[in-house]
């Protein structure tokens, strides 16, 4: 979450809230990104093994991501309210696993929950840490919609760059030589 890397507690559970999926938005996402007949055509979808229209897995995942980002902003607000400086969240380097379980149908309400399951300082980006997160989505019947194992960057509060790296960074600011250095060390 939007805390400094050092302040993140393993196994803390973050409820991310719920989303109600309508037929119109399922079809809209499908038409833009995943135009398979069971995501865009309610009539034809009846012929599929789903027996009707279902949301693209990538749609439910994108909505889940939005809920995570909103929770990060809310946490940032909460910390500022307490007079504390919030941490910095970075972009994500990837997703280890994503399993789509039960399809989402029009009218379903999906609830998202995040758990930080592990963390370590980044080897490749000094001053940043990696968070290993599990995100689970369930529907109104409590059935698992998807299970995701995500990786995210979070900034370290107490990071002091080693002298060797500070020197290297200074050298990369020199024209020409800097570019060569970045290429070799990047």
């Amino acid at each position: 979450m939007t805390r400094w890397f050092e302040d993140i507690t393993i196994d803390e559970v973050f409820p991310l809230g719920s989303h109600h999926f309508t037929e119109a938005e399922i079809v809209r996402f499908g038409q833009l990104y995943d135009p398979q007949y069971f995501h865009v055509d309610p009539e034809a979808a009846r012929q599929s093994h789903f027996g009707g229209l279902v949301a693209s897995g990538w749609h439910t995942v994108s909505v889940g991501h939005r809920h995570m980002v909103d929770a990060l902003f809310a946490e940032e607000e909460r910390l500022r309210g307490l007079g504390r400086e919030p941490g910095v969240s970075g972009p994500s380097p990837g997703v280890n696993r994503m399993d789509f379980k039960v399809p989402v149908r029009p009218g379903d309400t999906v609830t998202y929950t995040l758990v930080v399951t592990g963390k370590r300082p980044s080897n490749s980006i000094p001053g940043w840490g990696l968070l290993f997160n599990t995100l689970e989505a369930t529907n109104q019947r409590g059935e698992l919609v998807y299970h995701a194992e995500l990786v995210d960057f979070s900034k370290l509060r107490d990071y002091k760059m080693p002298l060797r790296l500070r020197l290297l960074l200074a050298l990369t600011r020199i024209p020409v030589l800097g570019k060569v250095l970045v290429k070799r060390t990047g």
Partner: protein
Amino acid sequence: MNPVTASRRHYEDLAVGEIVDLGATTVSKEMIVTFASEFDPFPFHLDEAAAKASLLGGLASSGWQTAALTLRMLGDRFLNTIASMGGLGFSDLKWKEPVMVGDTISGTAAIASLRRSRHHPERGIVTIDLDIRNQHGEPVMTMRLANLVELRDPSVPLIEGENP
């Protein structure tokens, strides 16, 4: 027989090693901001100044947008040409380089494995390796997808260890 997919390629028509060219998509600033506003409203996907100051170094698409645009290319070039039954998920998704405003992404989908479902004899599982690059040939995203595909003839017995 499913009338929607009857004329499409089925499980039996696919082969490990088949490579599909996914075509190309150019990512505009408007596309980036529109997607990010709905699904990934971090300042580094919405605002150029914030993006410059971030790890991304400039306005870049949400990784989920890169994935969604790739999915669209995969749908147009492959999934909508086979008797697809939807995705099971994916593994090892890696966002390797940010996709910046004006970048053109393209790539390939390679069939990595094919096997029949043990519990549903009418279903096969195809795994697909995606390799997406920018206009400089640098990898921007890789992942392995698993997708269900209908068998044309589910009555053919499943042979243990079979992997056509």
